[in-house]
Structures are given as structure tokens and as C-alpha cells.
């Protein structure tokens, strides 16, 4: 049973979050931390793992990645990191030892976080209780084990640097673009990838047939036929709050997790801002559902 621990996790957040000792910074950090969905991957909910102590397996077309311990434990977590290390990890995808991270860790999105927001997240993270749990090595094919090749990958697909607001767009749109792309990192799942795992920028948020754990990730561009063009701004905002679609269906699987752990905790204004941004995207026609499988076809492979 996946994700069972999310309610417990929220409780745990409420208990262990520093009570705003130096003003609003940790609180802002906690807000961002939730919005960015860090706990979703860095907690092994399937096996009742301790919050943020890592160990969750991410099954991708490139192999199995095990997430890392990001509690402040000095030996197994990030207790010995400096704030600089943290900023470099999220903005450049480089570990304190100078190694490149695999982009399963979405630094390709987090790179766009502002200095102030990174500082707030770091401040909040430092105040958490350390958990001792040794990281598991990733299970990858041999040709991906050599991290130096990531240098090339980054050169091809990674644009480091904080989000630059677009002057010709209203503040709410810029806030929405920042939240969707830097914080909640929608594109990491909703944008299709090329053979090398780089995001296809021309199909931004147009859905992905090869999502993590074999999921089919829907097209959320405003295309009326294959995307969510029929959804209003309020529909999108309501969905991010409650999980209900305009049809009265409810989110499940990974998106229910995102809503429970991240978007339902955003302010109404922030949810609205994301909706404004999503509605403004270029509509891309791309159907995600596969052809229906017939029973007989399946039986042939049994």
C-alpha cells in the first residue's frame, strides 16, 4: 500500500517544524518544501520509511533510483552540508563531493528556485530531526553508472539559473509559471522525454506515456481534444485543491499524492496562479492513452 503514511507525515510536519524562531523564514521554507513535493520522493512510504530519510524506489525507463536521506543526520543524511552545498545541489545538480546528480532528482526544475526561497527551504530543513538511514545505491545499467557522462547530458538538456519573470506578463502569470516550473515541477512528469531523457520542450506539459512506475501521464495543455482545454481556470484551481475534475471524477495514483502532499496546501491565490499559467500554455495535440488492449491479445503473451 503506497503513500499510506502521508497523513502521518503531515502530523509529523506539524510537530517537528520549528515554530518560527527567526520570523517567517522557516514557515516559508516549510510551505515551499511541501509545494515542491520533496517528501513524496524522499520518503519510502511503501515500507513505512521515516519521513525524508529516503529509500523510495523510483522505477524509470533508465533504471531504478533510490532516493536519498535529506534529514540533518551527519553520517547518513545532509547534516554536514553547508547552505552553499544545498544551493549547489538544487541549482546546479552537483553534490558536495562534486559529483553530478542524475536528473531523477528534478534539479532541472529546482534550478529555477529563487535565492530567497532556497534560503527559506534550507533554514526549515536544518531544523528537522535527524534520522539515521544509509542510502541505497541506484540499480542502473552499466552504461549509466559513470556519472561523468551526466556532464554531457547537462550540457544538452539543463539550463541552470533562477526563474526570470517575463516583463510582458502579469504578476499572477509569473507567479504561476514560477510555481509550476520551479517548485511543483509539473513538467518532470507531464512533459514527454526524448531517448536520452531530456524534456521535449516543444511538447511542454503535453503528457508522457512512459512515466515513473509505468504511469501514463495526461496532457495538461489547453488542447480541447487531448488536453484539458475544456477546463476553466476555476476547474484547474479546484482540482489542485480537492482532486475533483469537472466530470466529478477524483484524482488517483501519483496525482492524488501530489494534491494531498503539495497543491492542497498552497494558498488559493497560488493555486489560481498555476491555473492561469496552465491555461496560457500553447495547446499541443497529443493523445496519451494507448490502444485498448483486448483480452485475447493479452492471453497470447501469457
Amino acid at each position: 500500500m503506497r503513500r499510506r503514511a502521508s497523513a502521518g507525515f503531515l502530523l509529523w510536519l506539524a510537530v517537528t517544524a520549528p515554530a518560527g524562531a527567526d520570523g517567517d523564514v522557516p514557515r516559508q521554507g516549510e510551505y515551499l518544501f511541501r509545494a515542491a513535493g520533496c517528501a513524496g520522493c524522499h520518503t519510502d512510504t511503501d515500507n513505512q520509511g521515516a519521513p525524508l530519510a529516503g529509500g523510495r524506489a523510483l522505477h524509470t525507463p533508465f533504471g531504478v533510483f533510490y532516493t536519498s536521506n535529506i534529514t540533518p543526520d551527519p553520517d547518513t543524511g545532509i547534516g554536514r552540508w553547508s547552505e552553499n552545498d544545498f544551493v549547489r545541489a538544487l541549482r546546479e545538480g552537483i553534490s558536495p563531493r562534486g559529483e553530478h546528480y542524475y536528473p531523477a532528482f528534478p534539479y532541472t526544475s529546482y534550478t529555477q528556485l529563487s535565492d530567497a526561497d532556497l534560503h527559506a527551504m534550507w533554514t526549515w530543513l536544518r531544523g528537522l530531526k535527524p534520522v539515521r538511514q544509509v542510502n541505497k545505491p541506484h540499480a542502473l545499467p552499466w552504461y549509466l553508472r559513470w556519472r561523468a557522462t551526466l556532464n554531457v547530458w547537462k550540457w544538452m538538456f539543463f539550463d541552470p539559473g533562477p526563474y526570470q519573470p517575463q516583463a510582458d506578463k502579469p504578476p499572477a502569470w509569473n507567479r504561476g509559471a514560477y510555481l509550476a516550473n520551479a517548485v511543483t515541477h509539473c513538467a518532470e512528469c507531464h512533459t514527454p522525454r526524448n531517448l536520452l531523457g531530456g524534456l521535449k520542450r516543444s511538447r511542454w506539459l503535453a503528457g508522457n506515456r512512459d512515466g515513473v512506475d509505468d504511469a501514463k501521464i495526461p496532457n495538461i495543455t489547453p488542447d480541447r481534444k487531448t488536453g484539458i482545454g475544456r477546463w476553466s481556470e476555476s476547474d484547474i484551481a479546484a482540482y489542485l485543491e480537492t482532486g475533483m475534475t469537472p466530470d466529478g471524477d477524483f484524482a488517483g495514483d501519483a496525482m492524488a499524492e501530489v494534491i494531498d502532499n503539495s497543491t492542497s496546501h498552497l494558498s488559493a491565490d497560488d493555486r489560481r496562479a498555476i491555473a492561469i499559467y496552465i491555461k496560457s500554455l500553447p495547446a499541443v495535440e497529443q493523445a496519451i492513452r494507448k490502444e485498448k488492449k483486448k483480452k485475447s491479445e493479452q492471453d497470447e503473451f501469457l
Partner: protein
Amino acid sequence: MIISPLRSLLATGSLLAMLVPLSLHAAEPEDIIKYRQNVMKAVGGHTSAAGAIVQGKVEYKSDLLEHARSLQALTRNIPALFQKDSDFGDTKARDEVWSKRADFEKRANDTKAKVEVFAKAVQSSNQQTIAASFKDVGESCKACHKDFRKEDK
């Protein structure tokens, strides 16, 4: 005319064969899956309609009880929709629906209970209780989909 008894036997046989689907033959898994999806769509339809009334988007307050009662009827026995052997093909149901049956039934019963509370609230016509109990119904739907339904197949 030697053939005639055989012919009548054949005729009886095909008559029987025609009757079988109505009685003895087990339902096709595909049909169970389609039926289940249609019932779920009906649940979604009533939920969406009820939501529009609860949130004050439309003024069909006098219809709200109808939607609530329909939801009650449709959610009375959700596990029955997920029969054995209807776990493959064009379904988003996770294997856990069958392999963790007790957990699944707990979730389904929670939805049934939340819908009952909602229906009672509608009869009380207290706006706040209605809104709160409707929200609980949605939470229950999402909680079950989270653990037991796959992202699109």
C-alpha cells in the same frame, strides 16, 4: 425422416444455448469492467452535479437530495463491482483491489458511510454541514483512487 429426431435435438440444443447467457453463463470480464466504469461515471456525474449546487455555481437546490440519494444507491456496494477475474484488460484498477481486499473494502465502506452522512446533511439543509460532508465524500473518493487506481493505462 430419419433426421428429424436429430434435428429436433439440435433445435432444442440451440434453444438451450440461447438461454444460457441469460442464466448459467458467467459474465464476461470485459462486460463487468465496462459496467463498473459506467457506474463510476454515474457516480462522477452526480458528484459533479451535486458539487455545482453545493458550491453555489448553479441554483438547483431542490435537486440536491436526488443527487445525494442516487450517490447513496450507487455506492451501497462498491466492492461488488470489482469481481474476481475482472482485474485485467482495459481497467485502471490496481492488483491491490484484489490482493489487499480488506483494505480496499474498508475504503469502499468509508465512501458509502461518507455519502450517507452527506445525504443526511442535505436533508438537514444546513449549508455548512452540507459543504463539509460533501468535501468528505470527495476526500474518500480520492483516498481510494490514490491507493487502488492506476494512472491512465
